[in-house]
């Protein structure tokens, strides 16, 4: 098999996976099959949304991040975190304490992603004024959504906003700022603290740019545990507490549902959750809805507060950030400036994204004639399957099995109902039937000894 060109960050731990098929049924792109008693993710179809991770009963699905120690490959180690990170901590923990501990554990600079939101926001408004763009513009913020569009809604690739994400713009800003302070570029390592798998995939195989500006990605969940335990141990060094520069309210709320939609021009909609987004993109593709200027789509409900690597409940994260906004409003006037305005021209010139290329993965064959042949065969098979989508064959639906069969990835006898017919006709015996079931579910499950 050739190595897949598209990296995805969600992985299955074969040791712990019990092949229960919960993930297979939860996957919105039908990218998962169960085979040999283990779930398998199809690299080409997976968009890294994380729905499978949410439903796994044994935590067998993990996110492949970079090791924390990678930061020490660089002399200047920059942590770039999204505002949801601060939202993980209980209310009595101050942002400045988090900053201090982050330095204590090894980062030399600690910055917030949302710093770049204002400049992106005004660039989006300028972009909207451009008359020859496809409407609605679909936000480029959530990498799982970009991948979903490439794979499932390829006719909408031109609708994607061709401007970078706040994390990339913030990375450009801080990198350039350090370079201007006389630091050599190869001594700077920028590490993004991620609330999700999709952002890791976006760094390892970026869309619309050659190479990501970020050098590594660190799991927010792990880092939060580490930082919080240091805070509890009292390892906060007041002498190295930098005065955190304050963000605007709308910057802090940008990654949440409506955060972006409420700040752009025209008729806007904010849609969160994979199922909701898919339902809506389907309508946009058919032009069943019209007159919408801007679509904010996020794979997670409540936006990044719902990212799979958050420790805290999504609603509590939103509440905490809202409180932070209120506190900011009370101490107006004491704002420490980040100096990003000085870089605005540089950033505006560098935030343009290239083309988003469709990579439709639904086709049965790249040759249309053959694809039609396969589709007819698949339809013939499908009408003979029971249509109850039981999943016992290791595929998420009868239709998926029929397509797997014509693609040569499965056989009709994977269906337990077909097996029964074959057995009653004497075409296969009990042993063969068991052997097939073993092949799908693994002998452990079949013999009743899962663990």
């Amino acid at each position, binding site marked *: 098999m050739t190595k897949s060109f598209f990296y995805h960050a969600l992985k299955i731990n074969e040791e712990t996976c019990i092949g229960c098929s919960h993930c297979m049924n939860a996957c919105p792109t039908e990218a998962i099959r169960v085979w040999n008693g283990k779930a398998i993710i199809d690299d080409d179809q997976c968009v890294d949304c994380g729905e499978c991770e949410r439903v796994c009963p044994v935590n067998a699905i993990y996110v492949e991040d970079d090791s924390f120690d990678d930061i020490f490959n660089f002399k200047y180690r920059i942590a770039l975190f999204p505002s949801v990170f601060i939202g993980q901590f209980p209310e009595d923990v101050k942002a400045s304490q988090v900053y201090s501990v982050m330095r204590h554990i090894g980062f030399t600079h600690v910055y917030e992603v949302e710093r770049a939101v204002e400049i992106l926001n005004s660039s989006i408004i300028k972009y909207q004024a451009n008359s020859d763009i496809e409407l609605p513009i679909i936000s480029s913020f959530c990498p799982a959504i970009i991948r979903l569009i490439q794979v499932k809604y390829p006719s909408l690739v031109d609708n994607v906003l061709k401007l970078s994400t706040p994390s990339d713009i913030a990375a450009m800003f801080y990198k350039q700022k350090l370079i201007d302070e006389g630091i050599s570029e190869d001594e700077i390592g920028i590490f993004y603290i991620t609330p999700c798998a999709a952002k890791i995939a976006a760094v390892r195989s970026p869309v619309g740019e050659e190479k990501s500006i970020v050098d590594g990605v660190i799991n927010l969940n792990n880092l939060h545990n580490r930082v919080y335990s240091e805070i509890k141990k009292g390892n906060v060094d007041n002498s190295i507490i930098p005065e955190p520069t304050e963000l605007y309210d709308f910057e802090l709320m940008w990654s949440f549902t409506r955060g972006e939609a409420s700040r752009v021009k025209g008729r806007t909609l904010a849609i969160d959750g994979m199922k909701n987004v898919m339902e809506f993109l389907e309508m946009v593709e*058919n*032009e069943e809805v019209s007159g919408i200027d801007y679509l904010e789509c996020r794979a997670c409900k409540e936006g990044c507060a719902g990212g799979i690597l958050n420790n805290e409940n999504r609603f509590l994260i939103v509440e905490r950030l809202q409180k932070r906004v209120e506190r900011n409003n009370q101490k107006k006037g004491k704002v420490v400036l980040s100096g990003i305005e000085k870089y605005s021209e540089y950033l505006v010139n560098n935030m343009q994204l290239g083309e988003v290329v469709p990579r439709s993965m639904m*086709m049965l*064959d790249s040759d249309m*004639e053959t*694809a*039609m042949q396969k589709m007819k065969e698949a339809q013939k098979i499908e009408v003979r399957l029971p249509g109850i989508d039981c999943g016992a064959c290791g595929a998420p639906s009868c239709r998926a099995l029929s*397509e797997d069969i014509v693609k040569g990835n499965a056989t009709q006898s994977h269906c337990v109902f077909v097996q029964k017919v074959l057995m009653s006709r004497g075409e296969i015996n009990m042993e063969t039937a068991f052997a097939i079931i073993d092949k799908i579910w693994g002998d452990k499950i079949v013999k009743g000894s899962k663990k």
Partner: protein
Amino acid sequence: MMKLDYKIEGGDFTNAGHASSEVKKVLKKLNVDPKITRRVVVSLYEAEVNVVAHAYRGEIFVEISTNKIIIKLVDEGPGIHNVDQAMEEGYSTASEEVRQMGFGAGMGLANINKNTDELNIYSEVNKGTTVEMITYLDKN
């Protein structure tokens, strides 16, 4: 070559769009260019809604081959008095009820015309209408 067919009921707005969604799935699986797929689906959706909004019942016949897609919608209904006029942007006889569903801007046929390579409309007043839309796959 592949043939698909679907039935439409007049007034059934809940299911308007079913055929276009199904056809879209098929074209994606056949690796038809996404831009062409979109044009086909958009035209079919408009034509489907026209049967739901203006006629009593109808049937959709889709023929897909490697060089073209032919879609024919045959309906029983009031027919169109003046096809040229119906094609004009903004011309609509949609009832109040249909307008309340958000349709009736008089843009449908113009939109279909824009999105298909060939559009043929045959209509007989008090009998029905046949809309034939052809999209070629081998050009550009």
